């Protein structure tokens, strides 16, 4: 059975490499993806995926995942809202879908233990902190991908399966201010700086993310942060799928990691 794959808005733009690496990794693991090329409207996407005969819809973006999951869960709980929205969108929804994130796909559908078998070049010695941001865990009762919304470990488990270390750090679920990316960039810079600072404090070699928005802020803004706060972190930010790809022996360029603004080349030297 194929998994519905909703790439979201950024996968063909600022997060191309996430799209590329996700597809490659899934192919390697034998997970079939079927793209749901849809509009940025959660409800309609659920309807479309259902129409396509899929029983699950997987998203790589935590914002998309969050919206889809909230929509799905809310509609499951409130039939009157479902009717109202069905009217607006003009399509019925049978609520049969399973809404999952890429992390769910890897950790729960595929299984962390099996990941270990696919590792060809363990990332020994690499210290990676994982950044979940707000959207993967909040609100916990509706969306959290981890039962412990305050201290999720689902990404850590995958990273450890790849052979890397995951030191404690304090900012895994702090907000980066993504919704103000353009309107109040000053806030984003302040918050992103805090996150980078915490990662540096944890002595991390890189930050691992599972969301294009988180990636965009953390990767793109480092030079602006350097000029505003006077600290040049040059801390590589990697998508979880990229890290998996590297551990599975795929190439740096093959995975699109060369497209990052903060280069991860030195970090991954000898690992690919």
């Amino acid at each position, binding site marked *: 059975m194929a998994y519905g794959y909703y790439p979201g808005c950024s996968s063909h733009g600022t997060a191309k490499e996430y799209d590329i690496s996700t597809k490659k990794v899934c192919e390697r693991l034998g997970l079939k993806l079927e793209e749901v090329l849809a509009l940025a409207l959660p409800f309609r996407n659920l309807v479309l995926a259902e129409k396509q005969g899929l029983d699950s819809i997987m998203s790589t973006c935590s914002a998309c995942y969050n919206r889809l999951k909230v929509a799905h869960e809310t509609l499951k709980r409130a039939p009157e809202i479902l009717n109202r929205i069905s009217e607006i969108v003009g399509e019925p929804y049978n609520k049969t879908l399973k809404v999952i994130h890429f992390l769910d796909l890897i950790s729960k559908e595929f299984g962390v233990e099996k990941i270990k078998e696919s590792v060809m070049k363990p990332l020994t010695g690499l210290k990676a902190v994982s950044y979940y941001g707000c959207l993967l865990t909040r609100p916990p009762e509706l969306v959290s991908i981890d039962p412990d*919304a305050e201290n999720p470990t689902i990404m850590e488990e995958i990273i450890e399966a790849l052979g890397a270390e995951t030191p404690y750090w*304090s900012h895994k679920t702090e907000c980066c201010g993504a919704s103000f990316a353009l309107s109040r960039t000053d806030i984003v810079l302040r918050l992103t700086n805090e996150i980078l600072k915490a990662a540096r404090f944890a002595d991390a070699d890189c930050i691992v993310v599972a969301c294009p928005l988180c990636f965009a802020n953390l990767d793109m803004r480092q030079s602006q942060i350097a000029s505003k706060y006077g600290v040049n972190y040059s801390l590589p930010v990697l998508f979880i799928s990229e890290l998996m790809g590297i551990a599975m022996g795929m190439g740096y360029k093959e995975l699109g990691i060369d497209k990052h603004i903060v280069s991860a080349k030195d970090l991954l030297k000898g690992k690919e």
Partner: protein
Amino acid sequence: MVESSQNENIEILTYSEVEEVSGYIGNFDVRIRKKARLVDMKKCTGCGTCYQKCPVKVPSEFDMETGMRKAIYIPFPQAVPNVPVIDKVNCRMFTKGKCQICQKLCQAEAVDYEQEDEVIEDKFGAVVVATGYDLFDASVYGEYGGGRFKDVISGLQLERLISPAGPTGGHIVRPSDGKEPKNVVFIQCVGSRDPEKGFPYCSSVCCMYTAKHAVLLKEHIPDVQTNIFYMDIRSAGKNYEQFVQRTMEQYGALYIRGRVSKIYQRGDKLIVKGADTLAGSQVEVEADLVVLATAITARHDSKELAKILGIPYDQFGFFTELHPKLAPVETVTSGVFLAGACQSPKDIPDTVAAASGAAVKVAALFSGDFLSMEPLVSTIDTSVCSMCKACMEVCPYNAIQEEEITLRDGTKKKQLKVLESVCHGCGACVSTCRSSCIMLKGMTDEQIFEELMAVAQ
């Protein structure tokens, strides 16, 4: 403690549990299981050699896991009785089948691995329930580390660290590195007044013991700074408010009105992110130690005891009193009284007052040889009874029982009877009876019909 152990009217059964209670006021039959200590209480001299030499170390429950105890142990040096007990779960004799160090070293030959539980059956006229409380498990607060940070402790853990008989001999140090803390944060209402993660009620003692902690910390560590995040200060008790004021004025505690949203670790410091709603801003404290004022909760197994005793409990598991104002130590089961925090969170003065109250109720009950009972109870007309026993099912007190009588012609017959002393007169049996053979004295069907007729005229 010593006083109760020396009073000749008091028999103390430690390491024992009440298993079954039947009967009624003035006449309870109780079964108590005296668990095997595996140490003969008569032979043991309390010399302590056994637990000094025992090779197994486990976290001490008494020290709230701030220290270790052995597999054969006394919980604390002043324990009454001063007789060790072997913890079967951890003792090597039971986990691995060999060791016997304590037995070999005991000169009194008191260690007995074969000892078995003893079941005692006794009769009592009254029961006082004083089972106390449990502490809320703060690990549900992921934002406070979920139990992962060694230097985020509970108030009772701090209590053990302050105690001269505690694991550190009364030196207040951080569990993580043994250093003396200089900047300490207290967080109030952890699990209390929090319907989402804990309980909606106020635990009633935390405001005061936190103030006490701030005072004691200052006395132990003169250059310590204490910061207390609170929502309201509840100091309704004699001399309580003055105590809190002294804590602020003389002991330099900084009270910050607001809750804490998150605690995280940075190096060997704990960063506490809170709010000061009075200043209208966020507050960040770089703390060495964080103490959580965890809620008082009902004993985790209070419901089981409630069922044994036939007393009600509230939605949190606290036992329910007969009347919140007029009968606070009595229960609906006559002869069963409540004392202390098993009823609701209480501080020591309230607990002692409740205990003395319960004791007086018992003494009053015992002051006469007989007890006069209200006759407003059910009776069964056995000549009409069809023995369907529906009444037995609805009776909450098991007051209806089956008896066998011998008729004049010598044949035996089973019939139902109401135990007058057990019946509370609720009348559930009357309205359940299918053959209308049960009558509630003072409130018969006929009387109610008459009343209805009178009003309908």
